[in-house]
């Protein structure tokens, strides 16, 4: 049978024959992830199962990223649970403090996930690793506990939606614009149960960090995962990130897709998602009367070095508008260091930005930039549900770092070409 990328990767991890959509197969896991919020719940289930050890101490990843450094007593106590567990189990990849970065930026960067892997995480944005051709998906805490104990789990073989990206890529269009446009077209449950599989002639113009950003938001369309082929760009990325020998992977010719969506990017304008759903998308030029109080550039969607460079390119020699807070959050310690070495912090500082240490922080309304009543923010993160970044009376817009940085300069939602 000609296989989709999703079917192919599941087949690589099971002895059963993958025959059809909807079939349940038991698969071996390449990695199991939890963070400071979800870790303690999974650990509770782990204990209830009577388990004494994890299936592989090198394949369980614990990243204390949502409230790092710990923002209050409760979050500090949560980290203690995971820290003790990691020590007891001898977990190799436990990250906290100066070693911790936003999990979905950290794992690919450290080479802990590679093409063809099957990874589960107790975080809905675990789907990010599809950007390098790994099947990865978010689950509840009992599933994660089971994965930690047995190293295997059941999966339903998903139908796939093929998304072809065609045409000539405009200067200021990034992966973020493409995924927002797609979610706008198919809706927040447009890919329910399904795998999104990306292809097309313009894929070569979306770098791996852009692909990670797009796969990250597959869940915002209800998707199980968002998958990219593992091609030359993937190989280059992997080699630079501790994976010298990545496999090449693509869907078979003649694989069956439930639906094919084609997006021609020629002449495309940057896209912004308006409150309070990621599907409420508009071209940036239609929002030029929307003022902002805060700008956030970071998160597991857009906190990588290319995002920092994009923001710096726009902010160089410019100032953040009076009365606007612009918070820049490099997603990992390595991104932070690289941004500093490249002189990007000088640009951000000169512009009047706040430069944070790596954290999920404001993306989920945790800390480090929470919104008050009636405040409005444009953010490079992935969810703009009501109250996501703070007050139920606040408003959140989503965009690429290019648009977010340009908006910081003008104080209204602005495309970078308008500066």
């Amino acid at each position, binding site marked *: 049978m000609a296989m989709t990328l999703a079917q192919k990767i599941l087949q690589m991890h099971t002895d059963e024959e993958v025959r059809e959509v909807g079939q349940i197969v038991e698969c071996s896991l390449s990695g199991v992830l939890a963070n400071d919020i979800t870790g303690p719940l999974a650990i509770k289930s782990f204990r209830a199962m009577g388990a004494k050890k994890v299936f592989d101490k090198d394949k369980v990843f614990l990243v204390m990223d949502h409230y790092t450094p710990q923002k209050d007593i409760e979050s500090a106590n949560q980290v203690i649970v995971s820290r003790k567990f990691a020590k007891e189990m001898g977990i190799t990849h436990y990250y906290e403090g100066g070693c911790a970065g936003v999990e979905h930026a950290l794992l690919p960067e450290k080479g802990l996930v590679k093409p063809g892997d099957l990874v589960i995480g107790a975080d809905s944005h675990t789907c990010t690793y599809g950007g390098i051709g790994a099947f990865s998906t978010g689950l509840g805490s*009992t599933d994660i506990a089971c994965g930690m104990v047995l190293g295997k789990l059941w999966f339903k073989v998903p139908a796939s939606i093929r998304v072809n990206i065609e045409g000539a890529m405009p200067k200021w269009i990034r992966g973020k614009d493409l995924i927002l446009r797609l979610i706008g077209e198919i809706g927040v449950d447009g890919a329910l149960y399904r795998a999104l599989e990306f292809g097309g002639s313009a894929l070569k113009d979306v770098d791996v960090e852009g692909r990670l950003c797009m796969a990250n938001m597959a869940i915002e369309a209800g998707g199980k995962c968002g998958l990219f082929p593992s091609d030359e760009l993937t190989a280059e990325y992997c080699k630079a990130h501790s994976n010298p020998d990545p496999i090449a992977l693509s869907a078979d010719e003649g694989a069956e897709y439930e639906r094919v969506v084609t997006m021609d990017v020629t002449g495309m304008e940057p896209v912004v998602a308006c409150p309070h759903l990621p599907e409420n998308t508009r071209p940036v030029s239609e929002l030029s009367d929307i003022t902002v109080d805060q700008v956030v550039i970071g998160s597991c969607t857009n906190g990588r070095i290319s995002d920092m460079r994009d923001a710096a390119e726009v902010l160089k020699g410019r100032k953040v508008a009076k009365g606007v807070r612009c918070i820049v959050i490099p997603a990992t310690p390595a991104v932070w260091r690289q941004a500093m070495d490249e002189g990007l912090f000088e640009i951000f500082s000169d512009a009047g930005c706040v430069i944070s240490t790596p954290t999920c922080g404001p993306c989920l309304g945790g800390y480090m930039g929470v919104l008050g009543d009636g405040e409005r923010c444009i953010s490079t993160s992935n969810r703009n549900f009501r109250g996501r970044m703070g007050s139920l009376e606040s408003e959140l817009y989503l965009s690429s770092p290019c648009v977010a940085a340009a908006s910081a300069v003008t104080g209204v939602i602005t495309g970078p070409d308008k500066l």
Partner: protein
Amino acid sequence: MSFTGKVHKVGAHIDTDAIIPARFLVTTDTKKLGEACMEGLEPGWVNRVQEGDIIVADRNFGCGSSREHAPLAIIGAGIKAVVGHSFARIFYRNSFNMGLMLLEVGDEVEKIKDGDQLEISPETGVIRNLTTGGEIRIPVLSSMMQTLIDKGGMVNYVKEQLKEMGE
């Protein structure tokens, strides 16, 4: 093994906040959660339910958060199975992991009315409507799903696996 139960019908996109509102998440006790089942949909909803009844839902049942309290509340209310047009992905997994049977029937769901008596045979993939005499055929529940239901959920399943492995 087949079972019969009375149908309680609910609409589309019933989210986990409707199934069990956040204010009831102070416990993980199945019975207590069951007392508040569907409280976010209609206060006192659960009073109509008899042990062994069946929820029949329209599309995307269980959307929203990944809280495992949602399937637990349904189990705690005495519901034996949920027949739905479709289910939200994480809810689907969480349900079987908690030991709640879900059966996906697509548009056939329209053939079932509130108050109907259903006879469900998961092994043969047949749902018989005893009230109307109609029949819905569905794919047979996979052995993995049936195992999870039989064991009463994922925690028990893993416990037994560990025993078999001699740990």
